[in-house]
């Protein structure tokens, strides 16, 4: 039974999402994930070859031949799926090897795999904190952390984005709790800025707090050997809980983990509901992820190339006269402030063969609309030169080159 009254309500909700201009439509990619892809958009349109500036394929490993071969090998040798959760009959030697390698790579004491980092974040807080504790989160943490915190009975609090004075105030305020957990992203996915983990660890030591970092947009390339933001900030080995994903730089398929203090990981194995009640990561993904870690442990070539691409891209956008968010990460947001402008420019760039997405409220703060570009080690300089020429052409069309924030807002409104 599907009551008409319910169906009508759903239709009205969908219409309202469309009216607000925030209806999400998928674009169909007719090629492997890469720096250049073949796209059908809108549905039914002719296929177009475009330069991809919006994937999380930071190290270009999503379709790397060695990674694909490792997935094939695991598929042949260990099968397709486990048909079980981990603790019943779903743990293979591959899972234990991958957990051990991640522990070594991230510089922690132990690691537990989850079906995704979304699941890791959904499960970890509830598993290790209770009503005697407090979670103090940066206000711009990823949605999956917000959801995970809501599932946990510990007191919740937040601090202004990357504001260490405010965080200190909150730590002082909560000295009466049993445990304090500072919660932050390593790299913030919408702004591309890096959490000041060195200062956060210092405050954590001073106020007897633990530190949680979601390093999904950093594992594999931030820091000199790509270990993450803890390496980048000089606090390798000092983070109590790291969550991260295999779904971005580390091959890009799916899967995530909680890595950190031995007891915390063990409690997740006993209590974290997404771990207990969903299937083990499939063998081909575990096998391929092991290959990724092997590649990354041998050479820093790919993260070095990503860094060089990022430097080139940030510099080129500056010189072209765009307003960008400063930072050290391969996430480079081009600020347009006005929602419609972000959509218009993204659409025109697609016609020029550049695949980017415009983001606006409520995905980012009101009046902070932007086009988020992401670099990959798969890009090369000629490709990025083609991309910057397209950006310059469209930027000139809208008359925004050389304008600062105030100038763009005067011209297009916020």
């Amino acid at each position: 039974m599907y009551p008409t009254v319910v169906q009508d309500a759903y239709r009205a909700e969908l219409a309202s999402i469309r009216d607000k201009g925030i209806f999400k439509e998928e674009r169909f990619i007719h090629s492997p994930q890469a720096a250049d892809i073949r796209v059908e958009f809108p549905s039914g349109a002719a296929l177009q070859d475009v330069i991809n500036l919006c994937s999380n394929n930071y190290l270009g490993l999503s379709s790397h031949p060695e990674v694909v071969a490792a997935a094939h090998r695991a598929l042949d040798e260990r099968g397709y799926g486990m048909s079980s959760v981990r603790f019943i009959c779903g743990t293979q030697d591959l899972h234990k090897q991958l957990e051990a390698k991640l522990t070594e790579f991230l510089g922690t004491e132990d690691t537990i795999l989850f079906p995704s980092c979304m699941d890791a974040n959904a499960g970890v807080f509830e598993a290790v904190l209770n009503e005697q504790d407090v979670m103090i989160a940066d206000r711009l943490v990823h949605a999956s952390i917000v959801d995970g915190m809501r599932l946990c009975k510990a007191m919740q609090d937040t601090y202004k984005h990357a504001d260490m004075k405010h965080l200190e105030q909150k730590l002082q305020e909560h000295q009466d709790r049993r445990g304090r957990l500072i919660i932050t992203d390593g790299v913030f996915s919408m702004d591309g800025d890096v959490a000041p983990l060195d200062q956060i660890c210092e405050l954590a030591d001073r106020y007897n707090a633990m530190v949680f970092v979601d390093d999904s947009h950093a594992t594999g390339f931030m820091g000199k050997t790509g270990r993450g933001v803890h390496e980048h900030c000089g606090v390798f080995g000092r983070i109590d809980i790291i969550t991260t994903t295999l779904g971005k730089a580390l091959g890009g398929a799916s899967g995530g983990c909680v890595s950190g203090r031995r007891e915390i990981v063990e409690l997740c194995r006993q209590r974290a509901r997404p771990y207990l009640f969903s299937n083990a990561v499939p063998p081909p993904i575990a096998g391929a992820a092991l290959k990724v870690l092997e590649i990354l442990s041998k050479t820093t070539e790919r993260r070095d190339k990503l860094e060089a691409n990022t430097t080139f891209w940030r510099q080129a956008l500056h010189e072209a006269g765009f307003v960008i968010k400063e930072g050290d990460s391969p996430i480079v947001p081009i600020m347009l402030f006005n929602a419609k402008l972000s959509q218009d420019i993204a659409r025109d760039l697609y016609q020029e063969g550049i695949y980017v997405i415009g983001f606006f409220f409520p995905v980012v703060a009101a009046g902070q609309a932007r086009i988020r570009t992401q670099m990959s080690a798969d890009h090369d300089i000629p490709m990025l030169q083609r991309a910057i020429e397209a950006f310059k052409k469209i930027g000139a069309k809208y008359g925004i080159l050389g304008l600062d924030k105030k100038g763009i807002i005067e011209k297009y409104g916020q």
Partner: protein
Amino acid sequence: MKDVILDYIKNEYLDEEEAEDMKLDENTPLISSGIVDSFSMVSLKRFLEKKYSVSLPDEEATPQAFDTVNNIIALVNKHKR
């Protein structure tokens, strides 16, 4: 009460640049405008409960009830007696 709550919101939710740019008064939408998101609303609720010695039931601490300082004052007053 109005000025106390406005001061708290400025300190707790706005950074210095925003606080200068923005004219915040008792009718400014807080939640629907994105100044306070629902994730960060908990500290405001806790502040009100402590400051005015009230207990605000979760089912009444809705985004609507917290959307302006005037709404917040009405909610606090309702539970004060």
